[in-house]
Every structure is written in structure tokens, then in C-alpha cells.
């Protein structure tokens, strides 16, 4: 009896440990769907653009989503707008200065007001947002959707997916992005919409 019970209990304990362990999700998505859409107002038309050079990792525990930590990185060079001259200015020294500041980052410090239902977690994420070399603490609403075993449907490999969505706004003056200049031409506020998926192959 003991010969059977001990290995069984051991296996059960191992299974419980594995299921409770956080999963590391890699956000360098090979499908290339991860993106940030940004929008700011200007007199003639709103300036809409995208950024797709997303990478980083999040440590997510489906049993305890509130303990999620990690860092998301966006390559500044991937910032794109449809007007070639505008894009040149956006990448230039006065605006994003992508040569000197090649990355925008968000380091997740904590999640508050965490609510989880059917694999979907909503929370207020507090973290350090860095743009153009300036780091500020911000709090933004996030939605985390845990898609267990869905990686196979996407890439043929066993594993899970974690979809992260967030909408928030920053002031370009807070990050020295052509601060205090041309606010009659380009609004100080920039709306950001983040839609990214991380993969965790098994």
C-alpha cells in the first residue's frame, strides 16, 4: 500500500507545484501581430500611427494573476506614421530621438483591483514607463486573457498564450518629447492602445 501511495502523493504534489508555478510568456511574437496604436490631435487631422517592434517577457500565474510581473519593450524605430516627412520628424532628435533612445519600456511593478473570470483578468497595472530616456510611474487599466493550450492552434507547438490589452494616455511634455513646443500643431496628450500576445511553449 505504502509503495503505491508515496509515489502517487509525490506525483500529485509535483502536479500541484507545476500548476501553481508562474509561466514565462515571451512577447517577441513570431506572427508579428503585437502592436501599439498611438493617436494625437493636430489641426488638420489626428495623427495616427503604430509601433510593432514589441518584445519582453511577463511572468504570469493563472492561479494568481495578481502576481504578474515583467517588462515590455517597444523598439522606437518601429514607430510608423503614413506621412514620410512626419515619420522622419517623429524619429528625429526633437521628437523620439530613436538613435539615442532606441527603446520604450513598461516595467510592471504591481497589479491592483484584480478581478478574474473565465481566464480573463482585469486590473490596474502600476509600473515604470520609460520614453525618450525619462521614466515615470504610471497606473493603467489592463486586461489579461489567458488562452490555455491555444499556442498549438496558432503555431503548431504545445503551449499557452497570454493576450494583454491596455489603453492609456501620456503627456509628451512629461517625457521631453518636443516638450512645450508646437502644442498648437500637435497635442500634448498622446493616446496609446496596446494589444500584444505572449507565447509560452511547453
Amino acid at each position, binding site marked *: 500500500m505504502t509503495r503505491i501511495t508515496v509515489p502517487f502523493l509525490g506525483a500529485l504534489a509535483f502536479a500541484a507545484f507545476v500548476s501553481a508555478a508562474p509561466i514565462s510568456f515571451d512577447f517577441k511574437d513570431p*506572427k*508579428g*501581430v*503585437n*502592436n501599439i*496604436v498611438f493617436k494625437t490631435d493636430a489641426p*488638420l*487631422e489626428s495623427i*495616427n500611427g*503604430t509601433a*510593432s517592434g514589441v518584445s519582453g517577457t511577463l511572468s504570469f500565474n493563472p492561479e494568481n494573476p495578481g502576481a504578474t510581473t515583467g517588462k515590455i519593450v517597444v523598439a522606437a524605430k518601429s514607430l*510608423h506614421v*503614413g*506621412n*514620410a516627412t*512626419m515619420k522622419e520628424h517623429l524619429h528625429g532628435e526633437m521628437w523620439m530621438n530613436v538613435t539615442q533612445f532606441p527603446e520604450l519600456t513598461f516595467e510592471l511593478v504591481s497589479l491592483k483591483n484584480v478581478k478574474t473570470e473565465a481566464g480573463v483578468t482585469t486590473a490596474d497595472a502600476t509600473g515604470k514607463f520609460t520614453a525618450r530616456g525619462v521614466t515615470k510611474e504610471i497606473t493603467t487599466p489592463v486586461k489579461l*486573457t489567458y*488562452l490555455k493550450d*491555444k499556442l498549438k*492552434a*496558432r503555431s503548431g507547438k504545445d503551449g499557452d*498564450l497570454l*493576450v494583454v490589452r491596455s489603453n492609456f494616455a501620456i503627456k509628451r511634455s512629461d517625457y521631453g518629447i518636443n516638450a512645450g513646443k508646437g502644442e498648437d500643431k500637435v497635442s500634448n496628450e498622446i493616446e496609446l492602445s496596446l*494589444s*500584444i*500576445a505572449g507565447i509560452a511553449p511547453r
Partner: protein
Amino acid sequence: MRRNLRVVALLLGLTSIALWLALGANRGWTKTTRTEMKKDPITEIDYPVIEKDFSPGVEALGAGLMISAAVAGLSFAFKPKPKN
């Protein structure tokens, strides 16, 4: 000459308007790419697909009309043909 310049000015103006209309009547700035949003079926993420596409904006239309106006203005530098 005076008449010829005015015909050229009219053609330039009409061509500018026709091209602007034909290429999308973009009331914003000129775009050299077009971003189309698609949906990933598994994650349901809307993601941008960027394609090369020239769409002249109001500044391009304005430049065409200004050149047209300049050519029309130049026509006044020539004296009209005397009537017999």
C-alpha cells in the same frame, strides 16, 4: 501666348483636382503608406498591415493649384493680340 498660358493653367488646375480626387480625395496630409487593420483569429488582436500607397493630401492639391494660378498670373505679362 497669353491664351496658351491660360489653357495650360486651366489644364494644370483640372489635372491637380482630378488626380487628387482619383487618388482618394485625402483631406489630410500626403501619405505614402496605408495601414489596414486585420484581426488575428486566435488572439483576436487587431494588428496593422502597412502597404505602400500614395495618397496626395491637401498640400499636394494646394501646390498644384498654386502652380496653376502662377501660370495664369504669368499670362497677364503678355499683351493681348490686337484685334483687327
